């Protein structure tokens, strides 16, 4: 075996190792975080009123919040449009990527293939808008920190490398699929020797590791937001705070 091949074997092993580590950090970190939210009590009923009067109502409010961002619509129409398109694009991109991990590929994914490719291409528009407003609007600039920029830049870089592979430096899909299916069947094989694919993949690993310890937790955290995920029935029945008795008053 020559030096180059040896080096490639090391790199491949590193990438495979990183893939497992980042998947583990993502899934484990996400579940731990959500479990922590679930475990933490809600001492007082702080539902934002007027709110839904029953559980199906709360469910509907949360689904609405996740799918169409009504509060953001009330707050800022331009931001709402940008953020909504941003998330819809993300949805289609993620949907399309299931083809690399599922065999056979579900019909829906194939049917929406073209739409999903457009979503990937168009993703740049809302993403750059969100980045632009961080820099151009003084109030948003004031609150933006390095992680806010890095998260957006990371997503933009992932999308850019993805689109490069689709339109320009095409990667041999059979190799990609062999690699990804190898990963999920715990029989890993070396990734394709394609620099843009490798960059794309490493950036995704970084995103997965970043996810549970960052603001990206808004994705699961919203279901644990007490102002939204509670029934507006504070008066009846009696709501119990599990640690109320620990606070002694004479």
């Amino acid at each position, binding site marked *: 075996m020559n030096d180059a091949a040896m080096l490639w074997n090391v790199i491949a092993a590193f990438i495979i190792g990183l893939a497992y580590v980042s998947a583990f950090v993502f899934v484990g970190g996400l579940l731990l975080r959500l479990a922590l939210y679930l475990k933490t009590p809600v001492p007082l009923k702080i539902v934002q009123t007027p709110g839904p009067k029953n559980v199906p109502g709360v469910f509907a409010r949360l689904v609405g919040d996740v799918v169409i961002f009504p509060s953001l619509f009330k707050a800022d129409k331009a931001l709402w449009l940008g953020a909504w398109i941003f998330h819809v694009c993300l949805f289609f991109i993620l949907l399309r990527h299931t083809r690399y991990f599922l065999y056979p590929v579900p019909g829906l994914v194939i049917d929406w293939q073209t739409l999903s490719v457009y979503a990937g291409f168009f993703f740049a528009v809302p993403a750059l808008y969100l980045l632009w407003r961080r820099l151009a609007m003084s109030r948003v600039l004031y*609150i933006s920190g390095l992680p806010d920029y890095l998260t957006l830049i990371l997503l933009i870089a992932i999308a850019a490398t993805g689109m490069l592979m689709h339109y320009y430096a095409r990667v041999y899909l059979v190799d990609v699929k062999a690699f990804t299916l190898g990963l999920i069947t715990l029989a890993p094989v070396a990734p394709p020797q394609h620099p843009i694919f490798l960059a794309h993949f490493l950036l995704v690993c970084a995103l997965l590791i970043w996810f549970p310890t960052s603001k990206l937790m808004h994705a699961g955290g919203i279901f644990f937001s007490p102002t939204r995920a509670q029934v507006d029935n504070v008066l*009846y029945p009696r709501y119990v705070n599990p640690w109320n008795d620990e606070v002694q008053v004479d």
Partner: protein
Amino acid sequence: MTEKWTDFPATALTWEKRNDTLRIPVPELDEGIAAAVTCYPSKAKDMQAIALPTERVPDWQHRAIRKLQQLLERYRALRVYLDICVQCGACSDKCQFYLGTGDPNNMPVARANLLRKVYRYYHRPLEKILGGEAEAFNERVLHEWYTYFYQCSECRRCSVFCPYGIDTAEITMAAREIMAEIGVATKYVTEVVAKVYERGNNLGIPGPAWIDNCQFLEEELKNETGKDIRLPVDEVGAEVLLVMPSADNFANTDTMMAYAKLFYALGISWTTSTYCNEGGNFGLFLNYRNLKKVNKRILDAARALKVKRVIWGECGHAWRAGIYTNTLNGPMDFLDPPHPVHICQFTAEMIKRGALKIDKTANDDHIVTYHDPCNAARAGSLLEEPREMIRATCNKFVEMPANTIREKTFCCGAGGGLLTDELMPVRMAGGKPRAEACRSTGATYLATPCAICKAQLPEVMKHWKVNVKVGGVHDLLSRALIL
């Protein structure tokens, strides 16, 4: 600060109404412009009376960090909200204190970041490494907290516009609880809580003076109506214990007399209590222990007087704390359901049942508009009942612009323990949105069921030259009620 001050430049912006929307001018950032407006620090005797350290404890940094840890374990809202804010800025132009001052730390997200950066420092290593703003809990941070967490009225307006419902009030409450733990609190809030323990009410009115006031109001009612309308005190066995803001017996006496007329007309026996003649709960602005302890007095009084129901009077904070009574000191099953009850719910129900005779023309001299107290609307589900009451008692009712009422209501600018003179510049700036919304209606009477609003809004309206009388919702009923 209380003598003379120059208004914040932000308040010079032009407001106008188009269709049913108040166009809200958003000021440019003016960093630190409100930094000099801070509350007077607490006095040792008050701190002692409410079981807090009389001065800043020696190991304050350590204790504050430990308290933060405890609160993170106790409050899901705090944990989740510190984590998930994406810093989108949707809330940044929604707070009346930012709109009024232009100080960026009064943007809800930036206010929360004052705590979030400390959380990040001790609890979020990766974000810290990647350059997220992180700072140890130090003297400078404590000063920022003391300033800006006492320029927040905990009104929750930001949470309505947040895509995740992040409630800055929860963050503010946590920061204040941490500060209280290390002996840092404001004179106004601690004094009020101490007065409740000493005298039974926020204003510190002694029992005999309370009884005197009630007798005086009975005479007033006699002169006005010719009838013997009573304001009973400490009457064991009455049906209803009324816990109103003590200000009703002292400043907002029209509201107090309105309660008396209401119960008289209905033939329901009622009483106030000199042990607990206060609905307002300033423990809410300080820490859980005092919230619970102040609240407990209500049920203790109810038991002692053997009443069947407790009804909360026209007070926003009272109601926000009142709805927690069952959780804090319940169960309330020794009382008749439903409980707790707000006086507006009670009266609206009585009007619906046709139990009251009303002459609406008695209020024809006023164009009436309604200010939703932040606590009533966004925390207490009290949106329809006051409006039903006004529609039933007035012919001329106009709403303020749609983006300033109901769950989008602007705080009066003095809730959350800010109704103190040294904060006057911030209070007037924070009251500007409400003043402009009111101006746009041409109303001559601004009705609101909250003692804090009733104390703050006349000053605000005078300051911004809006010619309107501020009063209670029951005051309108009082004028229209046929006895």
